[in-house]
C-alpha cells in the first residue's frame, strides 16, 4: 500500500470530469483511505501483505500461563509482544490487549489516511468495531486473582478495561471522533457486521468518516480452554478446504480501516485503496453452531444485489474458511449456488491458515487480502492445503499466491449463532 498522504487538497482542474460522488440511487459512495493491523504475521499492513504473498504461516506453539494444561497448544499469537513498547504504564492499566491491538491498528489507518479530526470533521466521524470476547485477558487474570489466589480485591479499572466497547471508546478518544461510536459482537462475523454498518452510515449520509474493523485477544488460558470444549479445534494445523482438515486454529490481532465519503476523500486528494460497494447480512435462524448453506447464500446474493454486481464481476472471495469440516463444505456449497457457473471461474482463498481465526477481528484482517487483490493484483493463498475435497471443489488458490487482475471482491463471515455478513469491494 502507498505511504501516508497529507491532508492537502489536490489541485483538480475544473474541466476534468470525475465520477459522481453519489450512486445512481442517490446514496453516497464510500471508499477506504487508510488501513492498519497487528496480527501474528506482522505489526503493520506492509508486513502482513508480504506474508500473504509469501504464504507465510503465523501459527506456532502458544506461550502463556498454564498453557501446559490445555489440550490445544497452538495458535497464531502476536510475537514479539510487549505492551510497554507502545503504551505507558497508565495506558496499560486501562487497555486490555484487545484495546491495545485496536488502537495500534487505528493509528496506522489514520496516519495513512492523513486525516485530522479536530473541528467539524470530528463531529461527523465515528467508530464502530467488532469483537467477540472483548477484554478476555482481563477477565481471565482477575478471575484467577479472586478464585485461584483467593484475593478479595481487584484493580479498580477491571470493568472499564474488560468491557466490549472499551476499544471503540479509546479509539474515539484518541482521535476525537465525536459522532456514532459503538461495538458489535456477532462472534466470528463481528468485524464484517461492524464494517458493514460503518459503510451504511456513510452511504446514507449519517457520517463522513468512520474508523471500523475489529479486534480480538482471546489467546489466554480461559479463552482457549472454553474453545477446547466444542472439539472443533485442530491440534496441529489449519488446513481450510483440504480433505484432511481437522479444525480451526485461533489467532489474535486487529484490523482497522478508515471508511470515508468518496467526495470528501476525493476533494482532499486522498489515496483511495478501494471502494466499498455492498454489504448484506442474514441469519440462519436454525442452529447455534452448525452453519447453513442457505443462510450463507442469502447473504452473498443480497450483497451482490446491494453492490449492483453481477456474479461474473466478482474475481475473488476471501472465504470464511475456518478449516472445520462443517464450515468449509457449507461455504463452498453456498458459493457454488450463489454464483452458478461462475463459481468455477472465481478464486476463493482462506487466509486463516496464515493468521489464524481472529474471531471478532478476523473479517477486518481478511479485508486486507481483498484490498491486496484489487490494488496489487495478488491473490493471497490458502496455505496448508494438502488433499482435494470433492465437497470443496472450487479454486481455493492452494498454497501459493497468484497474480491476477480482479475488479470486484467479496469477503465472507459466517458466525456461530448463524449470523452471516458479507462485504463487497471494488477497485477504484
Amino acid at each position, binding site marked *: 500500500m502507498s505511504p501516508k498522504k497529507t491532508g492537502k487538497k489536490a489541485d483538480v482542474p475544473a474541466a476534468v470530469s470525475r465520477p459522481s460522488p453519489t450512486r445512481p440511487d442517490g446514496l453516497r459512495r464510500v471508499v477506504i483511505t487508510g488501513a492498519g493491523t497487528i496480527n501474528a504475521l506482522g505489526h503493520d499492513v506492509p508486513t502482513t501483505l508480504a506474508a500473504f504473498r509469501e504464504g507465510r504461516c503465523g501459527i506456532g506453539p502458544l506461550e502463556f500461563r498454564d498453557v501446559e494444561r490445555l*489440550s490445544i497448544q497452538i495458535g497464531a499469537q502476536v510475537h514479539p509482544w510487549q505492551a510497554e513498547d507502545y503504551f505507558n504504564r497508565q495506558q496499560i492499566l486501562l487497555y486490555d490487549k484487545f484495546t491495545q491491538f485496536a488502537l495500534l491498528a487505528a493509528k496506522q489507518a489514520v496516519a495513512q489516511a492523513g486525516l485530522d479530526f479536530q473541528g467539524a470533521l470530528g463531529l461527523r466521524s465515528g467508530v464502530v468495531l467488532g469483537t467477540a470476547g472483548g477484554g478476555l485477558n482481563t477477565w481471565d487474570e482477575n478471575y484467577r486473582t479472586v478464585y485461584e489466589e483467593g484475593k478479595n480485591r481487584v484493580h479498580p479499572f477491571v470493568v472499564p478495561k474488560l468491557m466490549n466497547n472499551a476499544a471503540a471508546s479509546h479509539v474515539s478518544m484518541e482521535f476525537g471522533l465525536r459522532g456514532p461510536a459503538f461495538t458489535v459482537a456477532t462472534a466470528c462475523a463481528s468485524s464484517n457486521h461492524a464494517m458493514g454498518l460503518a459503510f451504511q452510515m456513510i452511504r446514507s449520509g449519517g457520517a463522513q468518516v468512520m474508523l471500523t474493523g475489529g479486534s480480538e485477544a482471546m489467546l489466554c488460558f480461559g479463552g482457549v480452554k472454553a474453545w477446547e*470444549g*466444542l*472439539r*472443533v479445534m*485442530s*491440534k496441529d494445523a489449519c488446513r481450510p478446504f483440504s480433505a484432511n*482438515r*481437522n*479444525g480451526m486454529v485461533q489467532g489474535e490481532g486487529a484490523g482497522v480501516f478508515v471508511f470515508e465519503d468518496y467526495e470528501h476523500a476525493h476533494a482532499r486528494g486522498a489515496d483511495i485503496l478501494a471502494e466499498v460497494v455492498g454489504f448484506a447480512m442474514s441469519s440462519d435462524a436454525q*442452529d*447455534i*453452531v*452448525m452453519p447453513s448453506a442457505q443462510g450463507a447464500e442469502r447473504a452473498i446474493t443480497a450483497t451482490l444485489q446491494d453492490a449492483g454486481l453481477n456474479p461474473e464481476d466478482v474475481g475473488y472471495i476471501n472465504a470464511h474458511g475456518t478449516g*472445520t*469440516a*462443517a464450515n468449509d463444505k457449507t461455504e463452498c456449497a453456498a458459493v457454488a449456488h450463489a454464483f452458478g457457473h461462475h463459481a468455477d471461474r472465481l478464486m476463493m482463498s482462506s487466509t486463516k491458515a496464515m493468521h489464524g481465526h481472529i474471531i471478532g477481528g478476523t473479517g477486518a484482517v481478511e479485508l486486507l487480502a481483498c484490498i491486496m487483490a484489487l490494488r496489487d493484483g495478488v491473490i493471497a493463498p490458502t496455505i496448508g492445503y494438502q488433499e482435494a475435497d470433492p465437497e470443496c471443489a472450487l479454486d481455493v488458490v492452494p498454497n501459493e499466491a497468484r497474480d491476477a487482475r480482479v475488479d470486484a471482491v467479496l469477503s465472507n463471515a459466517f458466525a456461530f449463532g448463524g449470523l452471516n455478513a458479507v462485504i463487497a469491494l471494488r477497485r477504484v
Partner: protein
Amino acid sequence: MTDQIRNRIRAIIAEQAMLEPDQITDHSTPQDLGIDSLGLVESIFAIEEEFDISIPFNANEPDKSDFDISNMGTIMAAVERLVAQKAA
C-alpha cells in the same frame, strides 16, 4: 465392573436423549437416539466427568478419532478401555 460402567454410560446417554436407559441398546447410533453434533459433544463431556477420563474426540474427523462413535456399543467399549488404561 463392566456392567456398572455400561449402566452409568447408558444413564448419561439416556438423559441426553431424554429416553429411558433400557431404550439405549448397543446398536443404537447417536442419530437413532436423536443426538445431534452438539448433543454428542455434551455427552462425551458428561462421560469424561463421570469417569474422570480424557476422551480423544475431534468433531471435525469423527472417523479418525481413536474414540469410535458409530453406536452405543463402540462408545461403551472405548470408554471401558480408557477407564482400564486409567486404572493401570
